[in-house]
């Protein structure tokens, strides 16, 4: 009897060991990936004398001096406000325009919808620099540089195709009878879209909106090219601080501004993580 039980229990033991190994390697890998962010936040609360030490220190007297100093020197409040205006503005415009167009592609039997879909995916490969040069020239000609609306429209170039593609996937997955029955009840096509489809697709719409805000929030190239002072965003300040080799490495400013930039997005992303992961998977797989 004992002889019988041994192989089974070793088997179970090995299975359990493998499971524990999987779980713990997952935790360890996640922590490894998080470490640079942890180090950034930690460094942002150090005084200069604690930043440049050998060995690098984990325990120190925390201070918010760097924040207080650089928030004003790098013009962060205005940049933060600009970043919020531009990222939410472009995300909202894109979700309305892209959502409607995605619905048309998915449901309205537009002639050449397949071709348009392919074109849309292709357009996501257009290098932004190919758009930044003419945009800069045109904006300069019409006195539109350094304005929020210019940057908002520039961000639409990558957000609208992205939203269209994601929303097309969401709408394709909805049952067809929904708007058909609404339209039989006398709703117009647009009425059916607003009253029936949009509420049902709300989780998808929200996750797409959040992803769009994040994409616009961290955009650098267009912001560098199209703004200089009034409408400049936080990533531009970040690039300036990181690339500043004249004044030497300014790690206090780098980590403080970096933390300010990352924390809101992380909170935002964690609040809606379930939808985010779903949207991510759909964005990559549904076609």
């Amino acid at each position, binding site marked *: 009897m004992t002889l019988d039980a041994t192989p089974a229990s070793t088997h179970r033991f090995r299975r359990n060991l493998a499971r524990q190994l999987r*779980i713990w390697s*997952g*935790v360890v890998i996640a*922590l490894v*990936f*998080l470490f*640079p962010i942890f*180090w*950034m936040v930690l460094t942002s609360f150090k005084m200069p004398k604690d*930043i440049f030490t*050998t*060995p*690098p220190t984990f325990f120190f007297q925390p201070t918010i001096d760097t924040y207080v100093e650089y928030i004003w020197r790098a013009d962060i409040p205005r940049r933060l406000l600009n970043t919020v205006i531009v990222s939410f503005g472009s995300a909202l415009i894109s979700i309305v325009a892209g959502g*409607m*167009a995605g619905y*048309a592609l998915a449901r*309205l*039997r537009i002639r050449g919808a397949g071709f348009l879909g392919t074109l849309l*995916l*292709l357009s*996501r*490969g257009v*290098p932004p*620099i*190919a*758009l*930044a*040069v*003419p*945009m*800069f*020239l*045109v904006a*300069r*000609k019409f006195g539109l540089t350094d304005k929020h609306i210019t940057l908002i*429209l520039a961000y*639409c170039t990558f957000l609208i*195709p992205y939203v269209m593609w994601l929303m097309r996937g969401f709408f394709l997955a909805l049952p067809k009878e929904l708007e058909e029955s609404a339209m039989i009840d006398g709703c117009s096509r647009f009425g059916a879209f607003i009253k029936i489809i949009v509420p049902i697709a709300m989780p998808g719409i929200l996750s797409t909106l959040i992803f769009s805000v994040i994409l616009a929030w*961290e955009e*650098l190239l267009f912001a560098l090219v199209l703004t200089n002072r009034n409408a400049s965003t936080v*990533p531009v300040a*970040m*690039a300036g*601080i*990181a*690339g500043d080799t004249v004044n030497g*490495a300014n790690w206090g400013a*780098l980590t403080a501004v970096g933390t300010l*930039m990352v924390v809101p*997005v*992380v909170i935002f*992303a*964690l609040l809606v*993580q379930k939808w985010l*992961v779903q949207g*991510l*998977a759909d964005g*990559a*797989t549904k*076609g």
Partner: protein
Amino acid sequence: MAITAMDNQTTHRRSRTRARLADFSSRWSFMLPAAIILFAVLVYPIFYTLQISFSRLDLASFTASQWVGWDNYSTVLRDDRFWQSMQVTGIYLLFALPIQMVLGFGIAYLINAPWKGRDVVRALFIIPMVVAPVVAGGVWRMILDPLWGLMNYWLGQIGIGPIDWLGTPSLAMATIVIIDTWRWTPFVILIATAALLSLPKDVFEAADIDGANWWTKLWSIALPLLLPIIAATFVVRWLGAVKMFDIVLAATLGGPGGATNVINLFIYEQAFRTLRFAESSAMAVIVLVITMVLTGAFLFGIRKLEDVQ
């Protein structure tokens, strides 16, 4: 009687045409806002770039002034720095994409075990993903600093280094790939985890009963089932990676000696630092065409893959 019938028919036909027209316009009105915006900020600029690339740009008025044919293109194609930059970009893509795909799907497969903390771990992987690339470049530059950086201190403890990760020409691109991999592998892990969860469980249970080992399950069951998702994830990553700009700008600014000067950064510098708009437009058009062709090829490949399955 006959006249009224004919009248009826024409009005009927006319109203049908009108209804069809109304139907047509109501369909396309959904496309209208996106079409207008995309035309203004995507299609028109591309054509404008094309025009500039064949012109001389008047820097006083910032407009394309004189048609010069293929002059800008031949200047660019004779520029060694352009070719070096293309090569650097190619090396980046060739290493970063496969490494991220393998690591992402590998890690997702490795840590795929049901337990109550799974959602928390998954949420943790979201965090590196939403760190702006420009922040990632700056922070890694700090960690990898040869003098005060944490990495070199740790390596020094085990007797290695100090290594000037971003300052050594032969090493700088490898370092950029590492930073990019840090930023993007969590994205692949999240997609791969979702994909693994959606795989049919009974197939694996059947394989267990048949006594299939770990490797067989991975190679003969999981991989073929995951292939479409792997391909789609690759295309999404590719579409992001060809835009590589922020991380390099923050971490190395293209240096040392152009070793990490990816094409987007090179064109940016040529356009906005040396004000060579015409030549940088020509470069942008070349990059645009190459990217479109390769993206088209990948999409075609995916469609073929789906047809086979």
